[in-house]
């Protein structure tokens, strides 16, 4: 009796251990998705600050284009969302208009607008995340800093995009004010950067596709795409972002991202 019992026990124990080990190795798709998002975030942590010039090319459904130019400064805030200051240069009638945003991991962002003709700083509502940023195909939420906490995730599969081996991850916005029900992101397996993003609207239909290209590496670590192409499948409009003159390590402080600097920035 005794040996037999212990045999059964041993068998059961082995099965239990194997099951446990199996469970540890094979994450759920949700865990895998979150892990990828965290790794992306980790690899982009520690850049400190950056500034860049941005040209925004807007194309309407008739193929007519118009252009906007702006400068963008970013301050990384550890443990919180980043602070961003955008200063418009063209078109000329909006020159000097500036936009200050404090992104938060949880809850609404804080946003101010500076109108140079009146010299007025105005706190603006930040719940229009899904609204277009200066008439472009980019919504505010597409341009604000991508914090892990803003989505829940689900790993789907691996896929090769433009010769690059990618993870395909679905993510679902946490904020009910988001204009999207889900996004599908293609992540370069090697560099952990986004190559492509599909946006699905509130009705679940494919709305936009964003493609990143011409990635360059800065400070031997951080990747930034020089080109971002957003196409709206429902309206036929498109917006291309052309980034240039990236500079890291500017030594920016919180003081460079306050309402005073919003007024003085050029």
């Amino acid at each position: 009796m005794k040996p037999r019992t212990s045999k059964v026990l041993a068998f059961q124990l082995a099965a239990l251990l194997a099951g446990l080990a199996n469970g540890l190795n094979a994450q759920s798709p949700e865990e895998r998705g979150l892990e990828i998002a965290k790794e992306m975030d980790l690899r982009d942590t520690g850049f400190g600050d950056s500034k860049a010039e941005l040209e925004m090319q807007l194309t309407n459904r008739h193929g007519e284009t118009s252009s906007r130019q702006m400068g963008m400064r970013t301050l990384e805030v550890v443990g919180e969302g980043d602070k961003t200051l955008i200063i418009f240069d063209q078109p000329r009638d909006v020159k000097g208009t500036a936009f200050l945003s404090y992104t938060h991991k949880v809850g609404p962002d804080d946003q101010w607008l500076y109108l140079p003709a009146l010299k007025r700083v105005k706190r603006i509502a930040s719940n229009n995340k899904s609204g277009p940023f200066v008439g472009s195909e980019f919504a505010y939420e597409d341009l604000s800093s991508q914090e892990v906490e803003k989505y829940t995730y689900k790993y789907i599969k691996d896929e090769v995009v433009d010769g690059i081996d990618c993870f395909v991850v679905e993510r679902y916005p946490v904020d009910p004010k988001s204009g999207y029900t889900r996004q599908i992101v293609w992540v370069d397996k090697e560099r952990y950067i986004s190559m492509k993003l599909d946006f699905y609207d509130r009705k679940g239909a494919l709305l936009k596709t964003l493609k990143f290209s011409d990635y360059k590496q800065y400070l031997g670590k951080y990747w930034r795409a020089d080109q971002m192409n957003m196409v709206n499948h429902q309206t036929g409009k498109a917006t291309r972002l052309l980034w240039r003159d990236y500079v890291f390590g500017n030594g920016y402080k919180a003081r460079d991202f306050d309402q005073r600097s919003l007024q003085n920035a050029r």
Partner: protein
Amino acid sequence: MARDRICKTYDREVVLPIRAIWRATLRRCRGDQIKQLRQRQSVALLSTGAVLAAFLLAPLSFASSAEVSGYISAETRVFENAASYPGQESGPTGAVIFEPEFYHEWDGGESAFEAIAYLRKDSADEERDLFDLREFSYLWVNRDWELRVGISKVFWGVAESQHLVDTINQTDLVANPDGEDKLGQPMVQAVYVSDHGDFSLFVLPGFRERTFPGEEGRLRGRYWVDTDNPIYESSGEDERVDFALRWKHYIGDYDVGVHYFRGTNRDPGFVPGFDSEGNVVLRPYYELMDQVGLDLQLTRGGWLWKLEAIARESEVDRYSAMVGGFEYTLYGLGGSVMDLGLLAEAHLDSRGENAPVAFNRDLFVGGRLTWNDEADTNLVAGTFWDAENGSTFARVEFERRLGSRHKLEVEVQKLMNIDGFDPLYPIRRDSFLQVALSRYF
């Protein structure tokens, strides 16, 4: 970007002989006035020279980092009715406006110089001709300190339909009767930026008189304002040095500002008098005042809750006034990308219907429609309604960029059902349509 220009008042544009003002009437001999005029002309000439030199020479000396920009604009106003008073131009009027801007910063942005000149030539009213330095200042920024010296402009406040707490700069009333245009103010402004907010001290040497339409101009009362002949309570007249303190901070969803001002009231009273040709005119009377004020905004969800309040005290007057209300924005109107902002603000003045201002117990409701398109098209419309006498005053402003360098602006102002005792009564026939086309460079 939403240009937030909404209607502002005509307050104090109109005749209000406050009895006590008579006491303060100063008699000045003609000789003094001529001397003063000459001084002003030489100051204007000197500053013109300085600006021209800055615009021409600065780009050369500072080389590539200097920026020159600005616009030239042509506008025309067509009035609905014939003029009310003799001397006024009844037909359409036109104006050309040139506003060049020069900016240069150095020492990694620690120092900056900015100049904005403003030149306007009107077809009918010579009181609308103006040369002004909107900005001619040096800015020094060092960590927690900022210092601005020169001619500049500052904005205080949060409300849309009236800018009650916006005290520092004088209104250029003839640029636009909405009161959004301001004259440059000589100042030394020191700011200390801390975790407990921004503390500003203003020293304001030199007073700017409000601009008013002249004999030929519309948007005035029966008697025009004689801007050559102002009366000051201060013996320093327009050379008195005024002071102001301001604290500005944001705490979570709240943006708050508090100020104290001591000096010459930018809003004049009026005293009947005669000009050099023997015409009956209104002489602007600028009293001294102490003012405290508060501006507060709560930003939550799509709601902006706003409040501005002031308390003023002068030798003859003591009152408080407030404007408060909300702005709520509906995003993505009807599935489009357009936004509609709904505005409502209430105006209160402790002097009630006797207040010499148009908006004393009035209600403002309006809307702001933003197309969110590549031309930044937007439309702002609003109506003021006097709760006690029913006078109604409406404004509509539309703007749209044409191509990359031009902008079209259309404004309509309509006065309806104006009560005989309302301060807007003298301009009841001055409803107009204004179209402006600007080229930016």
